């Protein structure tokens, strides 16, 4: 019975983890009078520091799924929504062959369990080939609806690429966070 319980729990967790899905795009635009008071971009905070370009690479010596780029539990995947490119011919930082990297992205802040530091993660979509469909993940730490666009992982970010067809997502460290993200 214990085995059945474990199977059911794993199955339920997998369903919960993988549900919802994917996608993409956006960016700023003109101005509807008054516009919106956009909060300070976390990516702006990252690049604002004088040493941001020299932040050492995060420690990736992590055992188990938190260290596996093919896992939804991978530490960089705290706000991913889509197929992990490591399962699709790419890696956590490279798009699969023949695809195109979206120039605009959404941003997450994830904690690296190896060094305990928070890193800004750019989730670039890889575009131009159809949905990879493998290692489909949906995690939403700090994720926000479309009106808070740079924190939204539903948008088809391939809209900024030549082809708007979504293939998978990478998770690139763009800097070390100077503070925890305010969105929970």
């Amino acid at each position, binding site marked *: 019975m214990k085995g059945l319980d474990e199977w*059911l729990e794993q*199955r*339920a967790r997998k*369903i*919960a983890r*993988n*549900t*919802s*899905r*994917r*996608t*993409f*795009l*956006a*960016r*700023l*635009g*003109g*101005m*509807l*009078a*008054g*516009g*919106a*008071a*956009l*909060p300070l971009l976390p990516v702006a905070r990252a690049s604002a520091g004088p040493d941001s370009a020299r932040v050492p690479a995060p420690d990736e010596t992590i055992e188990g799924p938190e260290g596996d780029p093919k896992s939804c539990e991978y530490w960089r995947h705290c706000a991913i*929504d889509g197929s992990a490119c490591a399962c699709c011919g790419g890696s956590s930082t490279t798009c699969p062959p023949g695809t195109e990297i979206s120039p*605009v992205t959404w941003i997450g802040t994830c904690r690296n369990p190896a060094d305990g530091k928070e890193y800004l993660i750019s989730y670039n979509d890889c575009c*131009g*080939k*159809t*949905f990879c469909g493998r290692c489909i993940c*949906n*995690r*939403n*730490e*700090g*994720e*926000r*609806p*479309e*009106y*808070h*666009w740079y924190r*939204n992982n*539903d*948008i*088809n970010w*391939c*809209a*900024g690429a*030549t*082809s*708007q*067809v*979504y293939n998978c997502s990478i998770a690139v460290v763009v800097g070390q966070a100077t503070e925890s993200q*305010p*969105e*929970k």
Partner: protein
Amino acid sequence: MVGLLALMLAAFSLAAPLAAEAPREKASVATLPPMGNHSVWVPDRLTQHNLLFDGDSGEVLGMIDSPSLITPKTPLFVRSRNEIYSVDIAHSRGTRGERVDFVSVYDATTLAFKHEIVFPTQSGSSNTSQQYAELIGERFIGVFNQFPNTSVAVIDLVERRFVEEIVTTGCAGVYPIDAHRFAALCGNGTTVAIELDESGSFKQFSRSARFFDVVEDPVAMSAGRTGLRWTFVSFEGQAHTIDYSEGTPVVAASWSLTDEAERSNEWRPGGLQYVAVHGKSGRLFVVMHQGGAGSHKESGPEVWVWDMATQKRVGRFGSPNLTAAFLGSFMGVTEDSFVHDVLNWVLPSGGIHTIAVSQDESPLLFVRNGMLGAIGVLDATTGQSLRTLSEAGLAGPTLRVP
């Protein structure tokens, strides 16, 4: 040889009268009955179409192809013109080539393609595309664009033309108000009401007071409408109703969907399209689950129901086991069989991501899990599970009652 020929002729002469008496069938193409109150559009991400189900019989009535490059937007229906509209995106070579954004217009009886309206903006696409393409009255469609601007493209369905692009920086969505107005949600915690002139061009806009905090407790794009009011629900379970009947949107006092005990047990809204409102009764339906911050897209085991006038909860509906329904249909298992009962018992229910409610006097509540091609049909008054819409594609996050 002559004998064989004679035998064949004799056999033919005997058979011929029988064939003449058999009913003569003629192949034809079906048509749709008038759009019923209990119809529902079921989009599928992989097959890129919307199936139209009859929620009473459980049968498929027809389908609309909806190229989108991701989840198809659900079709829009205008009864007075008996037309169905699909806001589509396509590349000239499938995954590459020139991109075209267009509204496909179909006859709602034959489902035959009538014409298309090409427009020059890039319509947004997302996992759910909720409130991305909506009717403004019966004459216009507002299409939410995300790149390079956040804006709304206005399409005139009568004149069959693109009218103009209205820039809505910092705001998202199209929430219809009346024949010439729609609203949008904004990142600074407000909502704007945008008014069009008679031809569909931008006339003016007005902004509400700030009513939510995007960092602390944002509202979902999923929302419910009662006449000229929209009710938005936050990640933490606050209901915010905005009255758009006046020039400036008026914010009513918010109220909590959960009491202290429920909050301490981490009950909160979640899913992909987790809010629905039945306009005539003023009932609010929300998918609920137990989870912490960041769980706002998780499916829920229950749908809770409130009377918005009294702000009292009037129902807690359990989820049918859609995992069993989905797998059972692939296995050829009927819902009244013992094997189906076993599947129900053994397989954990995936819960509900998405709900939609019909707007008639005997409403149905449609429930789905975004990763399963099976839709549950519940009596929206009692919560009783009535039937399953089976083999409803493979995956999709939304539903729409026409």
